[in-house]
């Protein structure tokens, strides 16, 4: 994609953040490449926002580094034109209008005035909405305004913290198409979410973080790759017999369906040959969801524990 001889990547190297004794971000390293949407996934409080704040220089790492195309954020000449950032759509002066917030960004970056109208159109904020004060905006409208502010400088890199938060399903779809188009044109997108479904829909690559550490990372296809097949038939005994005779080891899942490591093609053929009619045949996802649920549960349990400790103390 790199016809201009430049490729904007976000490189995170051994990034950590400690506050006193507690470690919020623990030695994370990953790369968000150009032309792809990288999803930064993790339960609430996993360290996503702190990591993102460190990437844009709002928080200083202890220690570690985050660079954009090899340069620290603070060394960018006109940051808004190189990296579009939205960390919290609600972090705006409530007394300013949407248009004014865009105008401030446009002026600070030294852009032509028409960019404001273009961005309002891009994120579908009407004239009336743009002239209202942000204090009266819904969360969805704030997100749209935040996206507009991030995109106004035409940056090659986007860093968005929970951009889909507060958007309705149509809004999430709009966001997905927007970011997809942006990455397809060679842009680099890093977005965070605490919802696996959201990340699955939007991202190409996934970096999963829990308790400040990276739990797993890879392409979505890789991580969601089949880890077996679930099959169900009206006659489960016949199905089990068919699998046994074909030498397919099976386990019975919680809901009574059979689970096997073979791929769906093979399972379907075995059932067909044995004359068993299947009523369900699907792949099991690569454990990403299970891992994520585990992570979420762990975090919640820890929180419950600390609360109990506090009460006890």
């Amino acid at each position: 994609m790199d016809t201009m001889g430049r490729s904007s990547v976000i490189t995170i190297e051994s990034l950590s953040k400690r506050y006193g004794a507690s470690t919020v971000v623990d030695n994370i390293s990953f790369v968000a490449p150009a032309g792809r949407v990288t999803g930064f996934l993790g339960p609430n409080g996993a360290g996503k926002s702190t990591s993102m704040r460190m990437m844009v220089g709002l928080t200083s790492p202890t220690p570690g580094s985050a660079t954009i195309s090899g340069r620290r954020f603070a060394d960018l000449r006109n940051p808004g034109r190189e990296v579009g950032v939205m960390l919290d759509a609600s972090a705006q002066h409530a007394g300013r209008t949407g248009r004014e917030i865009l105008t401030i960004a446009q002026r600070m970056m030294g852009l032509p005035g028409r960019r404001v109208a273009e961005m309002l159109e891009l994120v579908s904020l009407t004239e009336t909405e743009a002239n209202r004060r942000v204090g009266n905006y819904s969360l969805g409208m704030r997100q749209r305004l935040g996206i507009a502010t991030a995109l106004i400088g035409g940056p090659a890199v986007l860093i968005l913290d929970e951009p889909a938060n507060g958007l309705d399903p149509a809004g999430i779809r709009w966001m997905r198409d927007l970011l997809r188009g942006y990455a397809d044109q060679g842009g680099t997108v890093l977005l965070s979410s605490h919802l696996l479904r959201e990340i699955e829909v939007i991202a190409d690559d996934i970096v999963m973080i829990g308790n400040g550490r990276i739990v797993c990372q890879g392409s979505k296809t890789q991580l969601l790759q089949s880890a077996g097949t679930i099959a169900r038939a009206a006659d489960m005994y016949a199905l089990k017999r068919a699998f046994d005779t074909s030498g397919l080891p099976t386990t019975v899942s919680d809901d009574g369906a059979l689970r096997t490591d073979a791929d769906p093609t093979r399972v379907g053929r075995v059932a067909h040959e044995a004359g068993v009619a299947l009523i369900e045949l699907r792949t099991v996802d690569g454990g990403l969801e299970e891992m994520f649920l585990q992570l979420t549960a762990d975090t919640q349990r820890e929180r419950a524990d600390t609360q109990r400790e506090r009460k006890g103390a």
Partner: protein
Amino acid sequence: MTAIVIDPVRDQRADVYPVPLSRVINVELRKMFDTRSGFWLMASIVITALLTTIGTIAFAPETDLTYYTFAKAIGFPMTVVLPIIAILSITGEWSQRSGLTTFTLVPHRNRVIAAKAVSSVAVAIASMLFAFVIGAIGNLVGTAITGTEMVWDVSLAEGVNIVLGSLLCLLTGTMLGMLIRSSAGALVAYFVYSLLLPTVAGILASSQEWFRDLQPWVDLNYAQAALFEGTLTAEQWANVVVTASTWLVLPAILGLRLVMKSEVK
């Protein structure tokens, strides 16, 4: 339609230039007026200037109807309002959390603070000039109405001193904004500093002999009040320099350090 406007692969690096400080100043100046509270603070400068002028003509004894009376009457509300503008300009970035955007567009926070200080000073000087003009008009109109003799009793040097005194008030606001970084906290601190402390110092000075001699050297309010009363002796200038260094410059340096280090959440 998205393809036209976002275009991430456009070769922008070639036309990306560093953000000049003048641009940051312009934007910060704009940000002082573009909210409802900002607008009304600015408007209040104009409104109080007009009201005090009318009030002076109506209520001041005829013998006091001099230019100095007008300038002082108009200048007083400004010394209250200007520091508030300076405070909110800085603390808003934290209290309203707009710093999240400001400090990512301009990662070097000292440049943002410098721009805010410069635009606050610019607003203050413009306001003071406005006060002198309104005062002059008031003096012309007032003496014409009462038929008394016109008295122009503010020399250029005295005028400069008044501006300087007001700037010290304003920069106190800037300093407190940096030091406290919360609108409510900084405003309370400012009123304690400008209204409560002088009273306490006054009581102390009238009851304690030792403090009376010390006061000009430790009390910024006291030292700076001389600036509004005419020309200063060399010792009074020294008082201003010593107290301003202690109560303005040193805390401001500490505040700037905190601004540079503090997290914007």
